[in-house]
């Protein structure tokens, strides 16, 4: 089968806002979600910078005996998924009557694991960690919780592909629906926002230390970038076949037309150019489009020296003389890691549907490596109807999605 695959609903819980309209405005206005967290400094962090994401109050929505299984990333994902289902016009009654799947990117459950093991050590008794810990401290916690809460009976799987996890989830959803194995999948990415989850990441000196100017710390592609800022939250997209969407009277927002992926086969943390480049090339081949049809590239660029430079070279190698507009929304959000591949599709669709490209916050001037691409520094009114979204991760895992506007 070769079904067309569309997105009919989106939801977001991020440092830029907790609904699509707020996030759209934040993107347009170049709002930063980055703060200084004294608690991290007190713990001995080299960099106490992080995005700030509110914890939702789910007491009125989920009974205690189910809520106790949910770490913060599952709570964020529950909120973003409710929004996405609502926009898609999918009710609980519909979910009860149809086989809907779930694929989410997630690659850590650090805080839940830390809390559970701490209790066991403290009391020398495994029961002391309570009944929620096992379900909170498995990597598939987001999909196991949401599948239970929404009574999902289709594919039920978490993708763990480092900082490309959310993008891989989207790509797999695309393939399963394209091949006719599923009609509708709740796809997304989630990321916990706490010191326990990123302490070891801080330990390898990957974070920006521009603590005196938190909102200027994440500066993808800029000459003076000095590391990433960790972020998080959750993003959800309802992915379904065009036939399925139209049959139930839904209005598609956009169409996924290509997915590419690759492995670097190289260093565990230092990226190269060839791996990402092959991911872009496979995505273009999969979509069957020419580079000139891509109106915007949402880059992976996290504000690290090596990563941004090599991604810029990969983009330049693939796009050649065509200076496609490129930005990284991570200047505003920090690096949303497991969530980023999904959230950045949400951000890009919001731009595409509202005719603008959000300026790459804090990009002032390129260095020798990043000068080869056309980074849009300030928000501009722009019409585009097709974009490419990159996500790359530790271990050399790469994922690239190509999405176009749907104008039924």
């Amino acid at each position, binding site marked *: 089968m070769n079904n067309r695959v569309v997105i009919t609903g989106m939801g977001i819980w991020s440092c830029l806002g907790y609904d699509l309209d707020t996030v759209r405005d934040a993107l347009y206005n170049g709002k930063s979600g980055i703060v200084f967290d004294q608690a991290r400094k007190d713990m001995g962090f080299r960099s106490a910078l992080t995005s700030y994401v509110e914890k939702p109050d789910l*007491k009125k929505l989920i009974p205690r*005996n189910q809520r106790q299984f949910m770490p913060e990333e599952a709570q964020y994902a529950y909120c973003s998924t409710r929004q996405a289902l609502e926009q898609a016009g999918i009710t609980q009654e519909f979910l009860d009557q149809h086989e809907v799947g779930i694929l989410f990117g997630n690659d850590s459950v650090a805080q839940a694991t830390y809390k559970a093991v701490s209790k066991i050590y403290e*009391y020398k*008794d495994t*029961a*002391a960690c*309570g*009944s929620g810990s096992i379900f909170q401290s498995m990597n598939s916690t987001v999909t196991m919780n949401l599948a239970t809460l929404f009574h999902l009976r289709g594919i039920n799987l978490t993708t763990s592909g480092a900082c490309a996890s959310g993008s891989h989830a989207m790509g797999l959803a695309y393939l399963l629906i394209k091949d006719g194995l599923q009609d509708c999948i709740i796809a997304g990415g989630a990321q916990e926002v706490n010191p326990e989850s990123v302490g070891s990441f801080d330990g390898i000196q990957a974070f920006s230390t521009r603590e005196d100017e938190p909102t200027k710390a994440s500066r993808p592609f800029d000459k003076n970038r000095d590391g990433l800022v960790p972020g998080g939250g959750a993003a959800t997209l309802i992915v379904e076949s065009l036939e399925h969407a139209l049959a139930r009277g839904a209005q598609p927002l956009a169409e996924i037309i290509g997915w590419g992926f690759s492995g670097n086969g190289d260093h565990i943390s230092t990226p190269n150019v060839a791996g990402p480049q092959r991911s872009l090339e496979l995505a273009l081949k999969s979509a069957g489009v020419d580079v000139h049809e891509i109106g915007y590239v949402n880059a992976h660029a996290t504000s690290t020296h090596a990563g941004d430079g090599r991604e810029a070279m990969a983009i330049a190698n693939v796009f050649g003389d065509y200076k496609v507009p490129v930005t990284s929304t991570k200047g505003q959000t920090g690096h949303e890691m497991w969530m980023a591949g999904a959230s950045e599709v949400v951000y890009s669709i919001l731009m595409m549907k509202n005719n603008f490209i959000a300026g790459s916050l804090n990009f002032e001037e390129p260095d020798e490596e990043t000068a080869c691409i056309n980074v849009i520094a300030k928000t501009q009114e722009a019409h585009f109807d097709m974009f490419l979204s990159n996500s790359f991760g530790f271990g050399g895992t790469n994922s690239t999605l190509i999405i176009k506007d749907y104008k039924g």
Partner: protein
Amino acid sequence: MTREEIIEQVKEVLAEEFEVEQDVMTDDATIKDTLELDSLSLVDLVAVVEHTFKVKIPAADLPNVKTFAQLYDYIESHLH
């Protein structure tokens, strides 16, 4: 710790953990029904008591701790 203090503290922590009003925890009420415990959340009762009183309730003893009064008795007799 007096029995009254134990009762007060048990009601406080269980109301917080299981999100119920303290006044539903009458002496003769069944813990499982009052707190809506299932096989999983029964573990949380054990954990909360352990955290609060440093008293472990082994699985073998749970059948003897059905009512709140029996829980108070158990804690009172096992407090160090």
